[in-house]
């Protein structure tokens, strides 16, 4: 890196620090700003689904990847290969040799659920607040963002979504359904 570039970077960081709200206070604003910095990310995931009628959780795993502003891909490798791709308003699901394409606008519940993850990864506070009531706990080093659906119809399906992380990285996404079933997805960032 040249000296000029170093200086510019320093200046930019300084400007960002000054623009940020009162240093030290961990706010939703700062979390979203931090998340919005990441333009793309890849992570491995392990998802455990707890279903009332099942004795033990169902486990699946794969790779999650995100590219700003609106591309999200969930590639499941185990127990069965499956690819879920979200781009704009189109949701594509490839499974068991079949490919189905959904228009998200036709499936508001699916849209709300998908938006919770995409909106968080993108640091898109506006998109999240259009669908959920947000609350943040913890510190920058270990935070938990809770999303409660604003729409009663949606709340009849999903009670709340909790997303935990450190700084601008997600570590756990937990979805609690209204019927008591739940899903816990642990995420590990990949280089």
């Amino acid at each position, binding site marked *: 890196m040249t000296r000029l570039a170093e200086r510019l970077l320093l200046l930019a960081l300084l400007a960002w620090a000054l623009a940020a709200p009162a240093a030290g206070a961990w706010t939703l604003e700062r979390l979203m700003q931090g998340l919005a910095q990441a333009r793309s990310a890849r992570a491995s995931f392990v998802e455990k*689904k707890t*279903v009332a*009628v099942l004795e033990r959780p*169902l486990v699946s795993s794969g790779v999650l990847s995100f590219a700003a502003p609106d591309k999200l891909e969930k590639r499941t490798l185990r127990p069965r290969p499956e690819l*879920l791709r979200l781009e704009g*308003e189109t949701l594509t*699901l490839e499974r068991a040799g079949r490919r189905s394409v959904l*228009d998200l606008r036709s499936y508001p519940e699916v849209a709300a659920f998908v938006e919770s993850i995409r909106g968080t990864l993108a640091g898109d506070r506006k998109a999240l607040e259009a669908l959920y009531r947000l609350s943040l706990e913890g510190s920058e080093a270990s935070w938990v963002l809770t999303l409660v659906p604003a729409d009663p119809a949606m709340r009849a399906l999903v009670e709340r979504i909790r997303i935990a992380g450190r700084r601008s990285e997600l570590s756990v996404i937990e979805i609690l359904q209204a*019927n008591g079933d739940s899903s816990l997805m642990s995420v590990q960032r990949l280089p």
Partner: protein
Amino acid sequence: MTRRALLPLALWLAAIAVAAAIAAGARYTADLSGFLPRSPSPAQQLLVEQLRDGAVGRMMLIAIEGSDAGARAAHSRRLARALRADARFAYVANGEAAGSARERALLLEHRYRLSPAVEAGRYTEAGLRAAIGDTLDLVSSSAGGLAQALLARDPTGELARLVSMQMESGSRPPLAGGAWASRDGSRALLLALTAADGADTDAQEAAAAAVRAAFEPAQGATLRLSGPGVFAVESRMLIRGEATRLGVLGTLLVAALLLALARSPAVLALGLLPVLTGALVGVAAVAVGFGVVHGITLGFGATLIGEAVDYAIYLFVQADATRAAPERTRAWLAEFWPAIRLGVLTSLLGFAALLFSGFPGLAQLGLYSVAGIAAAALVTRYLLPQLLPAELRVRDLSAFGARFAGLARAHPGWRWLVMALAAGAALLLVAQRDGLWARDMSALNPISAESQAYDGVLRADLGAPDTRYLIVLRAADQESALAAAEEVAQALEPLVAAGVLAGFDSPSRILPSRSTQEARMAALPEAAVLRQRLRAALRGSPLRAERLEGFVQDVARARGTPPLAREDLKGSAFGLALDSLLLEGASGWKALLPLRAPAQGPSAYTIDPARVRAALAGSQATFLDLKAEADALYSGYLREALALSLAGFAAIALLLAVALGSAARAGRVLSPLVATVLITAGLLAAAGQVFNLLHLVGFLLIVAIGSNYALFFDRELARGEPSPRVLASLLLANLTTLVGFGVLASSSLGVLRSLGLTVSLGALLALPCAALFSARRPDAR
């Protein structure tokens, strides 16, 4: 009035009374049936039935535009609620859950009879282990919502399978604010099915009115309707409006001409008498001959004015005003009637040819014209002379005629110019013969291209079926039709896998045949056996057999219920789809399997007929491409109409040869007519007009009208110099024809416009042509 006038007057009054009674009681229609063949092929029959009685014909597409998305969705929900409560609608869909709850419940209740996965082996220990394992994998996946919610009742995932089959069988529009919206988000969409048939235009009109009444415009939102029934109502209104407007306008203009000829109400009334009688008798004849009068036929009322008023004009102008009334009439009849009679007969022959058309619209037109012209001629011959006032004061047009007589004496060189023009036109027509005729029926459709395009957009947005490719099966009863559909469906699966087809629908997917349902029921074990197999199958699984009592109960209930029948589906989207795919006709049952063409790849939007026919080899099924059928139907009409017109022309030539006693004389009468038709057609073609059936009718009319002119010139020629009085009558008759058809050319309906344009142009050319051709050759003197 003399005693001798009483008989024709009494006969006329009686005829008018009968015709009026028939016309008043006649059934008028403006639907597509006028364009459909009288003796259709099976494929055409299907096309007709689908349009007339099928669900396709009952479909109403409703769009709400303007305002914002939220307001449009609210409008959509209110409108759907109102229409669902309205008996005039059998089904209303707008994407609301309320509209699909019934369907979901039906699928759930009958899943073991509907799911193709239910077969021998699936409910054995090994089968259950595999099926439940698959379902658990589905639950763990991102697509597992439904499977997870119903895991305890449906562990083998039959409902999830049925729902995903539903989603694959046709795209649905996206939702905005809980109601269907177009893909570009500019309008809210609803799909309604009327209870009444598409052919019942009155009921369709009432249904459209009900939608408009139920819609309360607010915040700038507007409503727009489309679909076959809406189009039928719209065409009827258009045709009715045009027929009335053109009839009134034509009558007023001709009346003005008659008044200019003689400022006498008697002349006006007498001049219009043959026209009105002809129109009334024409309608009555069509009503008796066809049982129903098509609106377009009424539109031709205007055409009859141009032809029938001529007869009266000949009488008024040609009769010698210097003689006393009875003598005057006798002299006119003796001198002029034979030529007029021959003109009438040639017109009748020309139109009689159309009677043999397989196209009911054209046959109606033929009958209407034949009856109308005959009636008008009879009134002119037998009634008018008796009713003429003793003193007939008609403006002397001799000076006018004398000037025109110059044309007939013009240099013979002019004749060669006309012949050269005709030859040039013929060459042009031959050179352009491939693009000369319209290939499809769209030219005959009164609905504007904009409305048709809008309909196409709504259809695409709603994912409404575009039933171009179909497989048709015939069977003696419903059960064998369903069984045959199942066989064909099996034969088509490899084509879907190979990408030849994107997919297909089958009535057997909605309502499996009894034997298939029984086979599926036979695969379900008794409750005790099922419990035992589940325990064995689920050893080591996270799902415990004890949790599945709901499933065991559902299976036991399914085994105990009677087979799924058509009545069970009534009033649901499935019942509706079934009604359009499984039909009972006069000749037995029919099952339809619409095929979907692939949307991408090398054969996008088209289906290779050879591959489909090969897959169907050995079965009774027929593969149809309805677009190709409709195009073939139309070109068949066109070929037939051309042949009939030529036959009519040949008959006219023969009649003239016999009546005039000389082939040469007949040739002299016919040649200006042929030249006129050729030059008219050439000019229209050069102006870029694409000919349809109505242009052909126009050419026939030119021959009918022009033959009067040519016969008069022939008659005058036989007596030496053409008399100015006769020439004046021809000029006036020509003017009325131009007025009558000029009015038609101003119509907003394409069919009437092309006819009006053709005939007014032809009439304009016919008179000078006839005059020039009658000019004597110097050597013949």
